[in-house]
């Protein structure tokens, strides 16, 4: 597991950083935070297996922040989009 996590952690973190930095829309940014979360879990595994408490706890905090990012971009923003789309539909029928 450590070997897998050792590859997943940097790859997921790099991919997530690209997804978020690219700013290609709310949905992709939200998915970027999910990938960030995968990276954080992998880093936590590495931290736990290798006895690096600082790495473990840092990524536990980052995992919580990533969860906030997922809510912000996939939960809240998606709800805004759904509600606004309802207004668009209602006014289109006029």
């Amino acid at each position, binding site marked *: 597991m450590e070997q897998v996590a050792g590859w997943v952690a940097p790859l997921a973190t790099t991919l997530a950083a690209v997804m978020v930095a690219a700013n290609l829309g709310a949905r992709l940014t939200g998915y970027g935070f999910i990938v960030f979360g995968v990276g954080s879990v992998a880093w936590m595994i590495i931290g736990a297996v290798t006895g690096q408490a600082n790495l473990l706890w840092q990524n536990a905090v980052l995992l919580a922040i990533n969860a*906030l990012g997922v*809510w*912000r971009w996939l*939960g*809240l923003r998606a*709800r*805004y989009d*759904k*509600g*606004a789309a*309802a*207004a668009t539909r*209602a*006014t289109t029928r*006029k």
Partner: protein
Amino acid sequence: MTDPRDDAQITDAATGKATVPTAPDAVLTPFSLLLGAKVSDRDGHPIGIVADVMMAAAEGRIVYVALSVGGFVGIGERLFAVPWACFVIDPVGGALAVDFASAVLDGRDGFDKDSWPSAADARLAALPPGDGLV
């Protein structure tokens, strides 16, 4: 600060196309400056943030601002459809304010988050310019 009511919206009756703004010296403000912007009330107190802006695109005019009041990153917030005419904006710095007191929204329910209104909040639209209920 510029009152958006100063810029009349003119629509070509024949084509329906908007011809705004008419003033050649109008200060242009990027739309992105509005999204997520903090909003103050008429007394300068923080009142909320801009969740989104609903516009009549064909007419080139903003109908209402979905103003998020209270809560934390959307949890526990209330959304209000504030008429664009209620806003005063610094077109350069982007400072955004409404021309009523934050107390106007106290005790009021926001609109349904899953089905946004097709028009601005009539109660807020009826407020006299620059004058809230308190």
